């Protein structure tokens, strides 16, 4: 009995003393943190990608709180969470945020194995940054993709992958959060975090970084920009400029008319649609017409079977050469009768919603051409 009593007393005393010590220590050494930092952190994606320019989500949260105290959240954007998250952050801090354009990473090199012959074998560490110091890479192009996949390793969102056929990285625009990690990782600055114009979420960009003169560039790569100036001439919005033997489209000025794309003799200018994967609209005239015909047939076949109305606007509006991504969507309509394809039906509805918009200039031109 005595033993138990002593044990209880001793343990109790130790517990009490420890509790007292802890109590005083926690009071004495308490670190005061603005509770809002924690609240803001909670709504952030916690990907800690650093795309905002701060060390992780915690750093961004404290920067937001600081900025809010200073009066404005301007210039602060979580590229991963985008507008919705920034709105939540603003509401916690009692602020307003303006709209910001969505962005996506684009790979500005089309030096596929076919376009760009390999002239050497690189036998070093599989890292673009190291390969970049070795020589101009395995090809003669000193500006293009080195193909070791530093960008793939840098991506936290599994949005960029090497295509083993082309040897180039490909961005999955649906997964890309425009955090910019890949652009930072690329030693040749091929990856650009590009604004996709407004609600349309589309963009034209120059798929080349080669600043050599036309003849040299062509020798190194069949898909190189040769600085022929045609794009600059056809652009009606002062958006395309050729500098240092390389064309660049200013995303803020580009009106998505597609004239430059048509004018480019090397098909360097590429169209990108953020809603789907990048289509390959190398619109040679004949295949385009063919596509249109087949698409039309597909549409007609699909139309009578279509079980519900919401899809009809697509069919009517897109009586035009369809982009591959849209063809995929339409192909989905054929299978719609099967009940297990309800999921794709949902996708169709979503697409319909997004495309319930006036025709794009490029589409108008295509329609007009018919």
């Amino acid at each position, binding site marked *: 009995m005595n033993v138990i009593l002593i044990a209880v007393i001793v343990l109790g005393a130790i517990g009490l003393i420890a509790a007292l010590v802890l109590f005083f220590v926690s009071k004495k050494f308490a670190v005061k943190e603005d509770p809002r930092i924690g609240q803001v952190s909670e709504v952030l994606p916690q990907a800690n990608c650093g795309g905002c320019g701060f060390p992780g989500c915690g750093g961004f949260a404290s920067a937001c709180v600081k900025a809010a105290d200073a009066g404005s959240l301007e210039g602060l954007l979580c590229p991963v969470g985008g507008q919705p998250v920034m709105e939540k952050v603003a509401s916690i801090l009692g602020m307003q945020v303006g709209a910001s354009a969505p962005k996506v990473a684009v790979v500005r090199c089309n030096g596929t194995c076919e376009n760009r012959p390999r*002239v*050497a074998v690189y*036998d*070093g*560490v599989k*890292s673009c*940054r*190291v390969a970049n*110091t*070795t*020589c*101009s890479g395995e090809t*003669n192009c*000193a500006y293009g993709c080195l193909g070791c996949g530093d960008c793939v390793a840098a991506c936290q969102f599994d949005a960029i992958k090497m295509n083993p056929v082309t040897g180039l990285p490909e961005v999955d625009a649906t997964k890309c959060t425009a955090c910019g990690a890949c652009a930072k990782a690329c030693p040749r600055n091929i990856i650009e975090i590009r604004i996709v114009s407004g609600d349309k979420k589309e963009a034209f960009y120059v798929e080349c970084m080669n600043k*050599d003169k036309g003849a*040299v560039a062509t020798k190194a790569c069949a898909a190189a920009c040769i600085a022929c100036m045609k794009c600059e001439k056809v652009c009606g919005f002062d958006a395309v400029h050729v500098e240092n033997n390389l064309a660049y489209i200013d995303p803020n000025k580009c009106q998505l008319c597609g004239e430059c794309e048509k004018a480019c003799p090397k098909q360097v200018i590429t169209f990108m649609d953020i809603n789907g994967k990048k289509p390959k609209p190398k619109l040679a005239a004949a295949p385009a017409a063919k596509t249109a015909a087949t698409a039309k047939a597909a549409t007609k076949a699909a139309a009578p079977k279509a079980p519900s109305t919401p899809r009809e606007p697509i069919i009517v509006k897109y009586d035009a050469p369809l982009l591959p991504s849209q063809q995929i969507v339409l192909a989905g309509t054929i299978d719609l009768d099967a009940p297990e394809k309800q999921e794709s039906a949902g996708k169709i509805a979503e697409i319909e919603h997004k495309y319930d918009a006036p025709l794009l200039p490029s589409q108008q031109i295509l329609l007009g051409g018919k």
Partner: protein
Amino acid sequence: MKTFRIGGVHPAENKLSAAEPIKIADLPKIAVFPMGQHIGAPAKPIVKKGDKVKVGQMIAEAGGFVSAPIFSSVSGTVLKVDTVVDASGYAKPAVYITVEGDEWDEAIDRSDKLVTLKDKPELTGKEIIEKIQKAGIVGMGGACFPCHVKLMPPPGSKPEWVIINAVECEPYLTADHRLMLEKADQILVGVSLLMKAANVNKGYIGIESNKPDAIKLMQEKVSAYPNIEVVPLKVKYPQGGEKQLIDAVVGRQVPAPPALPVSVGAIIQNVGTAYAVYEAVMKNKPLFERVVTVTGKSLKQPSNFLTRMGTPMSQLIDACGGLPEDTGKVIGGGPMMGKALMNIEVPICKGSSGVLIMNDKEARRGEPQPCIRCAKCVSACPMGLEPYLLATCSGNGMWEKVEAEDITSCIECGSCQFTCPSNRPMLDLIRLGKSTVMGIIRARNAKK
């Protein structure tokens, strides 16, 4: 026998062309002169398309103090001022000259007569440096640091010795070895000129013991120069590294960067540089030709050539029997620090000490295996660094860590990677780390 104290390795020497006398290479059809042949600001072209030039005429002026002018090695017409892919694999500005005849500038003394300091006692140190600067002389060992800059040390440092680097520790290369055997007198005059220019009383010539004939010859000739001493050195790579050579010859260690060799009192010049200095000062001949070793086990006839700059490497390879069928790698320089070339049309520059051909089997690196922490790289590192750690941390982007571990001291000699039983590409990663850290330091200094 003397050598440096820390680390070092001993690669197979393979001095295939050591017994080949220096041959004079044919003139090229078109000579190409890249503007960036040295460390520092690139030279600025002063000729334009259609200009007629003579051998020895300046075609580009120095782009600053740490820079050097470039001289035409041929006579003919300027074809164009454009870019050329040089040994780095990237396009750089260059002057192309179509060769017509071989008409030399009149000021150049083309006789074989040896001119010594006794013949020109009126020369002052300042005049010598000026002539060196005007002749576009840079370090001929490969680093291509402008020679005159080294001879004008920053205020506060007092040079005590000129040490001539005749070590040629790179395997395969024999250019310096042959030059010593064939131009010993001229080299010694060059050394005494360098000593006078730097205002020092003691000169050393460090030669590795695998060149006994050169040591013997130089020791005989040097008896006429009481202030110059030939120092035979034990064969160990990288003895030709500036800091290692100072340690080996006079036993002083240069502190970590940014300290310069002159801070311990030594000025290092390559033996080829000494010869170029002789020609520039005594013969008025600017730097436009050099000895190049063209070698390789698969090559029919490994040779040493006295080559005009601007000659494409392919021409020299053809003169040695052509590029073998199974060639895997063509290296500009030696096998330890040379640069693998993508393109054999690269022109010979001031720093091209050799062209090395390797067959496919020799050229391939072994498959990297996990690090077994055997510490052989640590033992081999001549700078007392820990290559395994630097490589791993660089690979993971831990820049603060590698900076704290003195990555900037690395001389990129390749001893670590050479010795690694796991075939790990350590130096690739260390170079990446070093250049990144240098960038970070520069940015930090710019902020201050």
